[in-house]
């Protein structure tokens, strides 16, 4: 038993090292297109900065949105964006490349390597393109906490990190589900659009949406747990809308969802081996 634990720790460390080596090479490759990388980051940051600005203009004109003021709504948005950025750093490239790999047969090259499929894909897919998302959302978070006169104590920081961690896990699960479906249907664009346009739900307080969407964003795809439920607790808001007292369940929801996504991915990958492309 102890041997088995030691072995899996050794495995995990090895895959971390592999991630490090792959990332080094990816950065080296990226530096040959330095300009393109910088422009990409700037354009993404501008994209989201404008979205923040519009949101602020809109909500300050209406004063508040179902009891959430402009800064609180922007906080929702920035938490969602940060978690998306972290998850994207690890998972976006898997989702982006896997359909093509399966379609053209490049996935076979993964299968002839002495590696486990999902950890290997994770190690080889790490990207730095989300620096803009993450930096911008940290800036906005700082601004909002300042405006809300909430001093960022160590205790608050710990709670923020907890929320972001489990939020990233939920986004990671979403990326994995879309990626895994590539094994079954080859083209994943449609599912990606459904999953990630629905993401807009997490930019606003869940309580402003119709009940059906509130339930869907809680039970079906747990967007509510990324930011709405935990932030409602963090900001000490009234427990209206959504499905009651769910803040404490965020970690459970995130872990269950992510585990299910991993299982789905692995089962789908197995399907590939028996059917081929």
């Amino acid at each position, binding site marked *: 038993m102890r041997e088995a634990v030691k072995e899996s720790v050794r495995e995990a460390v090895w895959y971390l090292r592999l991630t490090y080596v792959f990332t080094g090479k990816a950065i080296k490759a990226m530096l040959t*297109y330095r300009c393109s990388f910088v422009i990409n980051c700037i354009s993404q940051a501008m994209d989201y900065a404008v979205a923040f600005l519009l949101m602020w203009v809109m909500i300050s004109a209406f004063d508040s949105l179902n009891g959430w003021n402009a800064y609180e709504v922007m906080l929702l948005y920035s938490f969602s964006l940060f978690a998306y950025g972290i998850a994207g750093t690890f998972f976006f490239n898997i989702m982006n490349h896997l359909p093509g790999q399966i379609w053209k047969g490049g996935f076979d090259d993964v299968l002839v390597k002495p590696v486990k499929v999902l950890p290997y894909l994770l190690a080889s897919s790490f990207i730095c393109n989300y620096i803009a998302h993450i930096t911008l959302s940290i800036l906005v978070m700082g601004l909002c906490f300042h405006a809300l006169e909430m001093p960022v104590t160590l205790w608050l920081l710990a709670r923020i990190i907890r929320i972001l961690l489990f939020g990233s896990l939920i986004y990671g699960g979403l990326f994995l589900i879309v990626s895994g479906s590539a094994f079954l249907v080859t083209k994943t664009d449609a599912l990606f659009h459904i999953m990630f346009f629905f993401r807009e739900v997490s930019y606003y307080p869940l309580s402003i949406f119709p009940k059906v969407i509130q339930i869907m964003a809680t039970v079906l795809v747990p967007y509510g747990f990324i930011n709405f439920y935990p932030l409602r607790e963090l900001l000490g808001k009234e427990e209206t809308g959504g499905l009651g007292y769910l803040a404490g369940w965020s970690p459970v929801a995130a872990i269950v969802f992510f585990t299910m996504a991993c299982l789905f991915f692995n089962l789908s990958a197995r399907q590939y081996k028996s059917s081929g492309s």
Partner: protein
Amino acid sequence: MSLIKVEHVSKNYEVILQRSGAKNVWRNLFCPDKKVVYAVQDISFAIEAGELVGFIGENGAGKSTTIKMISGILFPASGNITVAGICPYLKREKNARNIGAVFGQRSRLNWDLPMLDSFELHKEIYRIDPVRYQKNVDMFIEMLHMQDFCNTPVRQLSLGQRMKAEIALSLLHEPAILYLDEPTIGLDVLAKQQIREFIKERNRREGITTILTSHDMKDLDSVCRRIIILEKGRILFDGAIERFKQEYTKESIAEFTYAGKCSDQVIPDGPVRVLLDKDHRLVVAYSPAEMTTAQLVGMVSAYYEINDFTIKAPDIEDMVRGIYEREAD
């Protein structure tokens, strides 16, 4: 015991048949017609350690499917496969340490980086000892003449240079078995020659068991000692390349150029078969055992005003075509 053992293996795919026409869109979507296609049907063969085996077959004959099953990528639908004592698709990771694979139609190299960077990644993935790694890299660069381009980004390399890098990459971890799926596709003569020599040399020196598929029969003729011919998922021939030549070299080909025809009649089918008659060129097949060259020329000149002629014993390509044509009848 054989290194690779394939026993009664079948593999089928379910293919969805698309009905044409606008009115069938909904039927295609909700109740598609499915058809089972056999990629490989009940094939058995065994390969000993150190053999060089060539797979021949038309597109869709089942070569790639067979290689994918013995390299652990695909499960067979039925039958058993053993490679070096283990089952490749159930123990995929363990089997993968033992094999190198090159799929000629695509690249595993990072196109933005020099090939040496991809080599270093490979070293990490296969946990190759640094000393052995360096020794192999130096040796392969020398043997495949890669000194000039090993620091150039792969996207700037020619097809032949890239393929050399691919093959070197797949041998860095010193596998016991090497699968090469069309390694010479689209290469120039010199690159082909260097790659063939390299494969043969590795086999001779290290005893690497090599399985090769190619559409270029010269590859197989110069590299392989044994060939397996597949057609529609079945094995048509499995044996030494020499035996294949003896068995199927019953006919020779003669090619004539002529100025005009002597009569309106054509040569009747018999000991001489007309394969082609176009643009003052006539190609016939005949059996050297049944008629001499003089008899042949005499017979043809009764129908045509011959300018010139050449006779050649068929190469493997012609023989394989002969087999396929016979199967099709």
